[in-house]
Every structure is written in C-alpha cells, then in structure tokens.
C-alpha cells in the first residue's frame, strides 16, 4: 500500500478509494539504493535459505514514512506504542521506506514446503468446502493442540449456527521454545477430529503470516480472510489475537459492532468465552453460562502444568484432554528425553 492508504487503513480501516481493509499492508525497507528508479523489482524471501524470489512488484512509489506516521499507525493498529509489545517491536524494527505497487506471487514460502499436509490457500479451502457440500461453516483459529475445551467450543459454535462443518485454521510458522512441532500438533488435532467429531465435519488446515498480536484489529483481519476462504462464521473468544494485558477481554468482539464499517463483512462472529469442564454439571461449558461457578468448580490446568504433566508421561484428566490426544503429545515429549 502507499503510505496514504496505509494511514487510512490504520485510522478507519479504509483505503483512499474507500475499499475496506483492517490493517496497513506495507513493504517497509531499510535500504532502497538498489531499486531507486526501477520499474520492476524482485522481492526476495527473508525466511528461506538463499533468499529466493517470492514475488515481483511493479513499482508505483517509494515513499519515506515519517516517525509521526509510524507512531500514528502503531497507535491505531496495536492500541499502544509500547515497544515491549511484540507486534509493535516487529513493526517498528522494519525500515522507513515504503515500496508500493501491485505484486505477483511465485510461491508460498516455507509455509507450504515445511507444512505440505496442512498449508492451504484460500482458493483451496473454498474448493474443499464446495467438495464437502458444506453451506454453513464455522472456522476456528489455533496455534496449539486442541484439548476438550476447544473441541467443545467448536461443537457449541457448530450447534448454535447449525454448521455443516468446521475449518480448524492454524497459524503456521516458526516454533518458539516450548511449542509443539506442527506435525505433532496436526496429528493430535486430526485424531480428535477422527474420534470425536461426526465423519467429514472437520477440515484441518493452516496459513502463513507473521502474527501481529494486535488483538481487536487483528480479529477483524482474521474475520476478513476467513470470509475469503469461504467460512460463514468465525469463533472469537476471550482476548483473541492478544498478548499480555494490552486489550480488554472482549474488545476483539465489540470492535465488530463499534468500528467495522457497516456492510464490510458478511461473515458472522460467534462470540465465545473461555470453555472448561464443569465438575458441577459434568460437561464442558462456556464460563459466561455458569456465573454461579467459582474457579474450583472447573477442571482448569495452566499451559505450563499441562506441558509438565505430558512431559512426565502423565495424561491430564480425561475431562481436560482426550486420552488419544494426550497419547500423541506424550509420545512426542518422550522423544525429547
């Protein structure tokens, strides 16, 4: 985008021509000496050895972005200029020259080569939805293995909207310390789908992007591209796409009512809360549906506790994790010892 369009998207989710886009999309560079005055430029991939060409751009403009403009965009998109915020830090770590113009893309980077069974384009997901004959589709974003709370959340959403299927749509990318490798995570999710969902009601897919951690604004972006991939509904729970304490628990839900331009999105948001197994009711419930419960009435385990148990070959209670899912995760942790 040009700086003008990027600022428009940051300010009010609209480009200069009125088109809706929730966040600025900029190609920020530190050094443009090699490409000044050039009409066509090859854009090389920073994440693959040898930096192969990822796309070719027809250069419209190279503009310098001022500090004030960077600050403005940071404020509006991330809701903060705090450089401790990982998304802010990543955004500001880029150069200050914005290269803009239409692009043509030649590959899907390491996302497709490293995750061939899971990576999908929006085109492919649309086609698969048509093949399945699905008309009402819920999509669910995750980075981690799905435990019973997530399984039930998907089922609640599917029941509520009478969905034909759910697309589990995972963010693919580099591992952080403690992350489960993607093939293990995918196997665990596929096992859950095979055993605990009606046949042919779950697609396990992924996409590649550098997460913004921008909370509400990123939730809107998430809804945008889930509509593009053919989903009619998208699950947004507590602190969606957030990090730390930057965003209110349900800001990523209310933004759709308060800031998204009227008619911009057809996809509907399934507004969710944390789900957990209720010892009182003997089933997984949404916390907002059990206002009389205290923390002790739920089976709650922190991520750290779950990793610790699995790492020690101890399956979490079946109210928390399906045994077959736990088995796959425990087998992985065993390989680390």
């Amino acid at each position, binding site marked *: 985008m040009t700086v003008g369009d990027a600022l428009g998207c940051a300010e009010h989710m609209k480009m200069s021509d009125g088109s809706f886009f929730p966040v600025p999309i900029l190609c920020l560079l530190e050094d443009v000496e090699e490409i000044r005055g050039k009409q066509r430029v090859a854009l090389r991939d920073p994440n693959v050895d040898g930096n192969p060409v990822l796309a070719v751009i027809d250069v419209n403009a190279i503009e310098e972005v001022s500090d004030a403009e960077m600050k403005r965009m940071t404020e509006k998109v991330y809701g903060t200029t705090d450089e401790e915020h990982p998304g802010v830090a990543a955004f500001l770590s880029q150069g200050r020259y914005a290269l803009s113009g239409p692009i043509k893309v030649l590959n899907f980077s390491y996302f497709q080569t490293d995750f061939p069974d899971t990576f999908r384009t929006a085109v492919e997901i649309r086609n698969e939805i048509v093949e399945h004959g699905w008309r009402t589709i819920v999509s669910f974003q995750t980075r981690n293995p799905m435990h019973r709370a997530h399984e039930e959340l998907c089922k609640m959403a599917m029941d509520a909207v009478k969905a034909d299927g759910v697309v589990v749509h995972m963010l693919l990318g580099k591992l952080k310390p403690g992350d489960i490798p993607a093939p293990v995570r995918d196997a665990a999710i596929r096992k859950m789908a095979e055993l605990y969902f009606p046949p042919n009601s779950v697609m396990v897919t992924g996409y590649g992007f550098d997460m913004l951690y921008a909370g509400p604004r990123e939730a809107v972006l998430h809804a945008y591209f889930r509509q593009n991939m053919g989903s009619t509904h998208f699950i947004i729970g507590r602190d969606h796409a957030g990090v730390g304490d930057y965003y209110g628990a349900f800001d990523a839900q209310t933004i759709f009512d308060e800031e998204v331009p009227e008619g911009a999105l*057809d996809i509907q948001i399934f507004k969710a809360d944390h789900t957990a197994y209720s010892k009182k009711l003997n089933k997984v419930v949404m916390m907002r549906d059990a206002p009389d419960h205290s923390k002790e009435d739920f089976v709650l385990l922190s991520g750290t506790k779950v990793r610790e148990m699995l790492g020690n070959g101890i399956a979490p209670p079946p109210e928390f994790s399906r045994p077959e899912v736990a088995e796959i995760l425990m087998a992985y942790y065993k390989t680390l010892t």
Partner: protein
Amino acid sequence: MIKPIGSDTLQPLFVYDTGEHQALRREAESLPSVVISSQAAGNAVMMGGGYFSPLKVS
C-alpha cells in the same frame, strides 16, 4: 457460498498460469531485487493465497 470480500470472485495474486509463471521466474532472475521483511513476506503469501483479496498492492 459466502462471497469473497469486495468482489464476486476471489482474486489470488499467485501466478497460476504456467506460461506466465515460468516467464516471471525467468525475468525475476535478472531484475534488481531486495530482501523484504518477514512481515512483508507474510503479507505476500496471504495475497498470493487469496486471503487478502481483492488487495492487489503490497
């Protein structure tokens, strides 16, 4: 099926036509080039895949 954003058809920026794709690849070898940021690469992948349709401009 739910319509894509802002258009009746999804407009992925990946070059599917093999002839055009090969020609672009060849041309790219001799073009001036720049290594882009990880964020910009992610944007390109999303645009390529049709996720950010109908956005054409990086």
